[in-house]
C-alpha cells in the first residue's frame, strides 16, 4: 500500500503543475499585470510610473511564461510563472497582492468553513440515509412515489432559494436565529443553525435519491432474499444487511469530499457572512489577486488528490477483496 500511495503522490506532481499552468493561463488571459496594478492602486491619479513600480515590487514585471531576453534555463526560470509557482510546491503561499500573509489567512478562515461544512455533512448524511431507507422500505407504495417526486422537486430548486427563503422564514418572520454573521466559540452556534439547516435541506433531494438507488440495488441482491427466506423481519433485513452493505459506496463517496470541506462554499458563506475560504477565493477573483487565486486553486487540487487517495484506501478497508498494489 505504501508503494501505491507513493506512486499516487508522484503522479500528483505533474497534475499539480498542469493545474497551476492552466490557472496561470486562464488568469492572465483575462487580466494583465497592468490591470492588476490599476485594480490595486485604485482608479484615481494612477500614473504609468506607479503601475511600473507596483509590477516591479510584486514580481509582475517579467515575461509571463518565456523570457527570450536571457540565455539558457533562465528563459524559463526568469518568468512570472516559474517564480510564482515554485514556492507553491513547498506550500509557501507568500503574501497576497495587497500584502497580507496568505497562509495566516487560510489558517484563520478554514475553521469558519469547517464549522458549516462538517455539521452539514454529518447531519445531512444521517437525514439522507434515514429518508432513503424509509423510501426504500416503502418501495412501490405511495410513500416511495411521492418521496421521489418530492426529491426531484427539491433537487430542482436553486440553492439560492433555500438560502433566501430560509433567511426570510426563520430569521425575518419567525425571529429565531440571526440572519447572518459569525462568531467564535459557543456564540458561533446561533449563527450556524440556519446555514446548516439550509445546507441539509438543500442536499436532501439529491442525497435521498442517490442513497435510495443504492439501497434498492442492495435489496434486490441474493443475500437479502436469503435473509428474508430465513424469516428475518424487513426492518432487520434493512438495518442489519442492506444498510451495512449500502454504506460502502456512501462512505467512500464521503471520504472523497472530506479534504475539500476546507475549501468552503462560495454562496452560503457570502449570504450568511461566514468568513470562510469560499468567500476568500471569490473575493480574490473579484479583486484580481492572483497570489490568492493560485494558492487556493493549488490547495484545492492538492486536497482533491488527497481525497481520491483516501477513497482508494477506504475501499481496501471496507471491502477485503480490494488490495492496492
Amino acid at each position, binding site marked *: 500500500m505504501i508503494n501505491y500511495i507513493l506512486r499516487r503522490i508522484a503522479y500528483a506532481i505533474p497534475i499539480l503543475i498542469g493545474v497551476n499552468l492552466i490557472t496561470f493561463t486562464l488568469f492572465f488571459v*483575462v487580466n494583465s499585470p497592468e490591470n492588476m496594478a490599476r485594480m490595486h492602486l485604485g482608479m*484615481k*491619479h*494612477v500614473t504609468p510610473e506607479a503601475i511600473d513600480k507596483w509590477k516591479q515590487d510584486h514580481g509582475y514585471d517579467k515575461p509571463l511564461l518565456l523570457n527570450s531576453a536571457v540565455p539558457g534555463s533562465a528563459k524559463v526560470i526568469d518568468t512570472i510563472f516559474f517564480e510564482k509557482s515554485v514556492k507553491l510546491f513547498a506550500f509557501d503561499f507568500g503574501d497576497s497582492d495587497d500584502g497580507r500573509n496568505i497562509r495566516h489567512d487560510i489558517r484563520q478562515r478554514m475553521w469558519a468553513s469547517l464549522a458549516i461544512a462538517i455539521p452539514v455533512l454529518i447531519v445531512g448524511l444521517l437525514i439522507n440515509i434515514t429518508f432513503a431507507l424509509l423510501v426504500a422500505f416503502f418501495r412501490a407504495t405511495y410513500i416511495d412515489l411521492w418521496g421521489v417526486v418530492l426529491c426531484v422537486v427539491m433537487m430542482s430548486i436553486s440553492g439560492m432559494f433555500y438560502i433566501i427563503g430560509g433567511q426570510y422564514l426563520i430569521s425575518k418572520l*419567525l425571529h429565531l436565529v440571526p440572519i447572518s454573521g459569525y462568531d467564535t466559540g459557543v456564540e458561533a*452556534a*446561533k449563527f450556524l443553525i440556519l446555514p446548516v439547516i439550509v445546507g441539509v435541506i438543500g442536499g436532501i433531494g439529491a442525497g435521498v435519491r442517490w442513497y435510495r438507488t443504492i439501497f434498492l440495488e442492495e435489496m434486490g441482491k441474493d443475500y437479502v432474499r436469503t435473509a428474508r427466506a430465513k424469516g428475518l423481519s424487513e*426492518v432487520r433485513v434493512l438495518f442489519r444487511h442492506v444498510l451495512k452493505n449500502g454504506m460502502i459506496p456512501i462512505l467512500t463517496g464521503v471520504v472523497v469530499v472530506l479534504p475539500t470541506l476546507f475549501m468552503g462554499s462560495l454562496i452560503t458563506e457570502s449570504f450568511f457572512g461566514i468568513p470562510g475560504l469560499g468567500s476568500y477565493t471569490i473575493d480574490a477573483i473579484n479583486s484580481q489577486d492572483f497570489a490568492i487565486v493560485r494558492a487556493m486553486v493549488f490547495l484545492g487540487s492538492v486536497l482533491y488528490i488527497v481525497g481520491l487517495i483516501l477513497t482508494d484506501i477506504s475501499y481496501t478497508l471496507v471491502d477485503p477483496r480490494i488490495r492496492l498494489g
Partner: protein
Amino acid sequence: MPRAGRICIVRQSMAVYGNFTKRSSTALNLGTIVRSFIPCSLVAAMALQLAGCGNRDWNNPYPESETNQNIHYSSFFERPKHLDPAQSYSSNEIEFTGQVYEPPLQYHYLKRPYELIPATTTEIPKPIFVDKDGHELPANAEADRIAFSIYDIHIKPGIRYQPHPAFARDVSGAFLYHALSPAQLDHIDALADFEETGTRELTADDYVYEIKRLAHPKLHSPILGVMAEYIVGLGEFGATLKSEYEKLEKAKGEGFYLDLTQYPLEGASVIDRHTYRIKIKGKYPQLLYWLAMPFFAPVPQEADIFYTQPGLKAKNITLDWYPVGTGPYMLTINNPNREMVLVRNPNFHGEAYPSEGESGDAEAGMLKDAGKPLPFIDRAVFKLEKENIPYWNKFLQGYYDTSGIASDTFDQAVRFDAAGEATLSEEMRAKGIRLVTTVQTTTSYMGFNMLDPVVGGDTERARKLRLAISIALDYEERISIFLNGRGIAAQGPIPPGIFGYREGAEGINPYVYNWVNNVPQRKSIDAARQLLIEAGYPGGVDPQTGASLIINLDTTVSGSPDSKAGLDWLRKQFKKLNVELVIRGTDYNRFQDKMLKGNAQLFGWGWNADYPDPENFLFLLYGPNGKVKFQGENAANYSNKEFDALFVKMKNMDNGPSRQKVIDQMVEIARLDAPWIWGLHPKEFGLYHAWFRNAKPNHMANNTLKYKRIDPELRSQKRAEWNAPVVWPLWVILIVLVVATIPALVTYRRHETRVER
C-alpha cells in the same frame, strides 16, 4: 416581556411532551410516534434555547453583554485593502482611517458649502508666496510670479497618540517591542496580545515623516504622482529612497526598516517641535484640501519601526492593518474577514460638537449637542456583510443603525408624494426611521471620445451631432426608471455643493434645456433632429453608407437584468434620432485598455470629488490631462485651447466673483462643445433609526463618527419589540410531520403482518 416569553415557550413544550406521554400507554402506533417525536422535539427545543441562550432577542447577532451599551453597529461590504494612510484612498478604507488618523485640517461637520477648519492645527495655514529669487510676494500676487508657496503649519501642543505597544518602554526607557524575539512572537496573534502599551505627544516630526512616507519605495501611495508635481523635491526624494532601499536590500535582505529621517526633503521640514513647513512649487491653493485627507496625517516613526519586524508581518500585524493615530477612535479588532471594531481613544485630545451650522440645522435638532465634548459613541462595530438582503433585514430588525436603499428594496422604503418629493413608506414611518436625501458631489456622465473621427473633433458637424445626442438622451427618464428618482440631471460638469455650480435659470445648459415654468425642460426631440440635419445626418442617415448612422457604446456589461434593461433603454433613445446604437460590452480590464488606447467612441464614466473645489471636476476636461496622450483623467480626450487657458487661470484663484466668472466661461465652452452628455448627479438616500442622532451626510469629511450619537435604551426597547420570537409554526410543522407519519406507520404494520403470515 421578552424574557417571560421565553419561559412560556419552555412550559409549552413541556406540556406537549406531557400530553403525548399520557397517551403512550393506550396506543401502540402512537407510542411509536411519541418515541420518534420526543427526540425531535428535544433537538428542536435545545436548538432554539441555544439560539436564544441568554438573549432576549433570539435573532440578535450581537452578544447579550452589548445590550444597552453605547455601540454603533455598521457593516462593510468588502475588506479594506489598505489602512496605511499613505496608501488608503478608497471610501471603504477612509471610513476607518478617518476616525483614527488626524490630518492637520478637517471639514466643518454642518456648514455648507464645505468649509475647512483646524483639526490638530491652531489655525488654517496661510501660504507665503516667494518668487524664484526667494523674495516674499504679496498675498494677491499674480500666479505666474509665484515660484513657491510656503505653508508653516502650527499644531496644537499636548495631543497624544492612542495607547499602542510601539510606544511601550521598559523602566530604562528602552522600547519593549522594537526587537521581538521568536519566543515573544509565539504568543502574539493580534495587536491586543501585547501586554504593555505606551503613548507620546504628537510632534511636527510625525507629519513630516508621513509626507516622506508617500515616496517610500515599498509603499504605493496613489497620490505620489500628483504630490511630486507640487511638493518641492518629492520626486527626487522618491528616487533617492529607491536607490538607497535597493542597496540596503542587497545587504540586509527583505523586511528591514528604512529610516526616512536620515534623508532630507526640501518640500517638508520641521521648524520646531510643533511647527512644520510644506514648500510647494508655484501656487496651489488646493493643497489645503489635501491636508484634510489621511495622506497627510501623522505617523510616528516608532510605529514604522515596530511594524517592520518580519515576525509581525507573517501574522498580518502591520501598519497597513493596525493604524496608530491621535484621533477619537482606535482600531482594536481588525479581522477584515469578519469584523472591525473602533473603540474610543482614551488619549483623545478633546473637541467640542459644533455650535453653528447651515440654515435649518437648528430646527432639525442638529445643534442640540452644541459645545458638548466629542466623541459620543464608545465603540463602533463593523461587520462584514457581503449581501444586500441580510443587511437590509438586519437594519429593519434594528441590528444596524443606518442603511442606504438598494433598488430592490426601494419600493418597500420610499414613496413619492403628489409633489414628487420622496417620503418614507408607512412601514418605515411606523418604525420611526428617518429619511435624509442629499445630492452627492459626484458626476456620472457619458463621454464622446474626442479623438474619434465621427463623434470627436472640433468641427461644427461633430459638435452638432454630439448636441443632438445630448438632447435625445432623456436623463430625467433614466433617473426615474432606473434610479427611482435618486439623482438630478446634470447641467454641466460641476455638481451641487461645489463652488461654481449655479442654481436655477442661470445654471441650465441652454443647448439642451429651456427654462419653462421655473424648471429646466429638455429641448424637444425635433430640436435634436434639426441639429442632426445640420450635422449632415438628415433623418439619422449617414450619407456615406445610406443607412442609419451607427454609434458604438463601449461599456462594461454585468449581465444583470438591470444592466440589460438599461442598455435597451439607451438603444431606444438613439432610435428617436434613427441612429443605431451598437453596444460593445466588455469586461472592465478590456474597457480600461480601450480607453487608454482611445478605441472607444462613446463610453460611460464618473467622478467622485476628492475635495470641494471646481478644479477637481474641471480638470477632467483639461487638455493636458488627456487619457490617450498623457494617461490622465480626461477620458474624453477633450482639448480646447481657450478652456485650457481658463483652467490654468481658474485653478489658482480664490473663491469669489472673479473665479465664478471664469468658471462660467469654462462651463459655457464645455456645454457648447459637448464632449460629455452631462448625465446626472446621484442623490443619496440614507435611512436612520430613531436612536441614531446627529446624522447629516457630509460627502467631504471622513471623520464624522465622532459627531454621531446613539440612544442605546431606545434601541434595546425597539429591538425587543420588533424581534419577539415566533415559535408556534415550529410546533405546527412538527404536528404535520407526525400526522404525516401515521399512514406510513399503518402501512408498516400491514406490511409486517403480511410478512408474518
